[in-house]
């Protein structure tokens, strides 16, 4: 019996898996995509236009069930009655931690992965991030520069569609944007106040801009699919989008791959490990467990793209065996599983804008907020810690919460609750967590998932640099709100978010030029086994302050171009 050998096997169908499938299939390769979760049916699974009264628990979900089956996932704002079916069952997909060192590992297993409920904020990294180690001496530089990534950012942005405003800031390079969403008057007031404040303190990096978000405000520039519609502002993106207005691999990259006729998508295929060829020492395929029948299967490919999510891809490498029987592959450097990072949150401020009119103006749902890119520790060290943070937030009118603090009673009170909607404003920091060798994952063979595969033991702790940063985040956010004329400011100086809560986990199989210090080369190719590529967040060397998914996708597109060239040249 002949066994089919695919040109490439892509593990995962989320942001990076979708891009790998699209790029490789469009370049003529025969691609197999393995997704651990089931197929998604928008008619059945999307609840974007449901009102709370359509749902038995009015949108909050069955709390007892959530606590019993999704005690970790339900900590994510999107894991509610509208969307908790997009998140895993924590006891079927467990992991372990040391006592007192929690980690919130938020996951979605379905076609499209977490792109169905992601935050959609899309920012480019700059050389301030990619070469941060050269500036402050901590850790390693990325093996690539901004100019290496820029053309791929362009490709990705043209296809997924990112709305935003060019700002000409060196620390936040502009992209190819669709028209920006409008700011609210509270946000415009913040922008004016902060930019005056920036002039006063002489910081040219300080700017308020509308969030750059992967949501169509008109047709995308590369509209080869022709199926996605501009956003209709219903405002509940993470419940699924029938019009495909926000980018998800389910509605964009996977259809593009599948329509080539060269991509095959297999659902419910839980990849356990990579299988090596005894003769060549290279990867010859992957081994998976069928989540429905529990059958064990093996598929073969000329190269493997791991796009399963940072920690899952690392788990697959750790769970594979090298030819000499040692546990873990691509780990001659000893850094596989190490340098796990996430964005640290917990510092910020909120207040009110009493000078704005309180007449309600109910216009449904801009799915976006504002962004203040990192402006500290850039050209000079002006803070008592390394690296920095950006702020995300927004301003709008309270719908009904003001009733709790409004004085009075009776008909007049009710009238005021209906008619007077105060303006609030908030800023929350996203801080760069330094890469620490001690923050790591390893296999815990004493605990397995529902498919019998050993789980990860995740050991992460934020340290002094982050502790100092979170306090500064709160103080600075309050200063900015004060500069905008906000009153009643409440400062949050921590505690720091639990690691993983940013849902930007990355690192553990980092890139680098030195095979002794890194797992992957500058094209995301494993130093040890050249036909294995890891293109998801695992490849991160340092996290920066920007939301990472856009970079994951750009880096995947770049790795695919390289892999195809290598394959055609016969080097893979």
């Amino acid at each position, binding site marked *: 019996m002949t066994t089919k050998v695919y040109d490439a096997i892509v593990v995962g169908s989320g942001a990076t898996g979708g891009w790998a499938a699209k790029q490789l299939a469009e370049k003529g390769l025969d691609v197999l995509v393995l997704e651990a979760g089931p197929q998604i049916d928008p008619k059945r699974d999307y609840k974007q236009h449901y009102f709370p009264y359509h749902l038995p628990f009015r949108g909050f979900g069955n*709390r007892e069930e959530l606590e019993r089956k999704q005690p970790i996932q339900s900590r994510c704002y999107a894991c509610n009655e509208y969307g908790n079916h997009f998140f895993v069952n924590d*006891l079927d997909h467990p992991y372990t931690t040391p006592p007192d060192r929690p980690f919130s590992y938020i996951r979605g297993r379905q076609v499209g992965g977490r792109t169905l409920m992601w935050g959609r904020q899309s920012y480019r990294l700059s050389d301030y991030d990619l070469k941060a180690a050269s500036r402050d001496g901590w850790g390693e530089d990325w093996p690539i520069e901004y100019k290496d990534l820029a053309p791929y950012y362009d490709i990705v942005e043209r296809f997924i569609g990112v709305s935003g405003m060019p700002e000409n800031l060196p620390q936040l390079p502009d992209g190819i944007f669709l028209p920006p969403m409008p700011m609210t008057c509270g946000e415009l007031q913040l922008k004016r106040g902060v930019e005056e404040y920036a002039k006063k303190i002489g910081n040219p990096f300080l700017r308020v801009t509308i969030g750059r978000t992967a949501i169509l405000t008109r047709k995308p520039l590369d509209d080869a699919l022709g199926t996605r519609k501009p956003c209709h502002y219903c405002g509940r993106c993470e419940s699924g989008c029938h019009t495909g207005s926000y980018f998800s691999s389910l509605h964009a990259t996977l259809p593009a791959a599948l329509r080539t006729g060269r991509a095959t998508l297999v659902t419910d295929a839980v990849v356990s490990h990579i299988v090596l060829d005894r003769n060549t020492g290279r990867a010859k395929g992957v081994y998976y467990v069928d989540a429905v029948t529990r059958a064990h299967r093996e*598929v073969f490919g000329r190269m493997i793209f791991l796009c399963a999510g940072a920690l899952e891809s690392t788990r697959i490498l750790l769970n594979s065996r090298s030819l000499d029987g040692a546990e873990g592959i691509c780990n001659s450097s000893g850094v596989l599983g190490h340098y796990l990072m996430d964005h640290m949150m917990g510092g910020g401020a909120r207040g009110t804008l009493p000078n704005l009119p309180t007449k309600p103006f109910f216009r449904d749902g801009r799915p976006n907020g504002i962004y203040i890119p990192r402006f500290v520790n850039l050209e000079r060290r002006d803070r008592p810690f390394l690296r920095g943070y950006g702020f995300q937030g927004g301003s709008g009118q309270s719908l009904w919460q003001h009733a709790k603090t409004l004085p009075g009673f009776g008909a007049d009170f009710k009238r005021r609750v209906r008619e007077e909607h105060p303006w609030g404003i908030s800023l929350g920091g996203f801080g760069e967590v330094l890469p620490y060798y001690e923050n790591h994952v390893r296999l815990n063979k004493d605990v397995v998932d529902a498919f019998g595969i050993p789980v990860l033991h995740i050991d992460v702790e934020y340290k002094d640099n982050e502790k100092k940063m979170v306090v500064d985040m709160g103080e600075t956010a309050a200063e900015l709100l004060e500069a905008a004329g906000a009153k009643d400011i409440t400062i949050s100086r921590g505690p720091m978010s639990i690691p993983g809560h940013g849902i930007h986990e990355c690192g553990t199989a980092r890139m680098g030029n030195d095979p002794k210090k890194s797992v992957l080369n500058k094209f995301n190719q494993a130093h040890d086994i050249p036909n294995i590529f890891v293109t998801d967040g695992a490849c991160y060397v340092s996290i920066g302050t920007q939301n990472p998914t856009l970079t994951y996708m750009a880096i995947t597109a770049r790795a695919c171009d390289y892999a195809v060239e290598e394959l055609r040249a016969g080097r893979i």
Partner: protein
Amino acid sequence: MRRHWAMICAAFLVAAINVSSVEGQRRGRAARIERASGTHLRSSNDYSPTGPYSSVIAVGVHRVPGAVPASDSNAEVRAISGSLRGNRIAVRDSQDRPFFDLRLIRARIVQGRLELEGEAIPVTGRRASVRMMVDLGGTLAKYRPPEDEQVIARTPVTPVTPAAGQNPAQPPGQAPANPESASGLGQLSQATQSTARTAQTPTAPGGKQAPQTPPGQTPGGRTTLTEAITAPPVQTAAVAGARLGATTGCEIFFLRFRLPEGWPARTTARRDGRRPDIRPIYQLGVMVPSRDNKRGEEIDQAMCRVVRTLQSGAGASERLNEELARLNQLLAQASSAEPR
């Protein structure tokens, strides 16, 4: 003649196993075909479907299970779940049906691992309860210990502005009672605009008439999502537990055991033609409800202290004995308090 009959019986047995295996696979395929075909449906809003158009049921070469490499044991492990209330774990099978109750009685350390002795009490049928041993495979922390949070919150800083409109979940300059609230500030800001969450006080104090919005004023937004997310965050019982300072550091733990002799194993799907293991290993993921479960939380905390001490390594044997004694005391108290 006898040999001939034995061969016929053996042939029937093999055929029966094969048929049931094929049947199991057929059921699985049918379920998946049904799911895959769902993608051809149009959405409720009559937008054109934009998802992937097809997916394949399964590809590749069939392999005999048990070859998952890094697992040292070739024994089949079945993951099930349960919840600890008092000293009793309500165990559910992999299809989420009540399986049995496991009443924890005693704890001890065996070869550097925490082992628990329990009594398995069937929830249905007439089977008698039996003693069984379970051992702890790992733990999962959801929260930092409260003392760590306080250290962060005590960092000496001066508020920029006196806060008049305080968020009850997070007094200024102090740690929020709920660790979610501060971090949620960042996470929520990624969602739809973070609007109403921010406002706590009226802007027209003293009962003055609110000024009218000028025509053409840029509005703020409101969505049903904003309403949902600006309400207090979904307060799972575990979060409520954290509010009360009931963090344990090991809020979820994983036990391993074999079923008592004679108890039927429960499985979701036939495993590819293999003869089912008579006594497979079960892995029980246990969460600890935080509502009305003080005793359960105390037991979990005591277990967590034992685990911490075990992991702290050599030189801790005296402390380990103390912690173990405390855990056993709690288990004994819970057993004696439980109605028979």
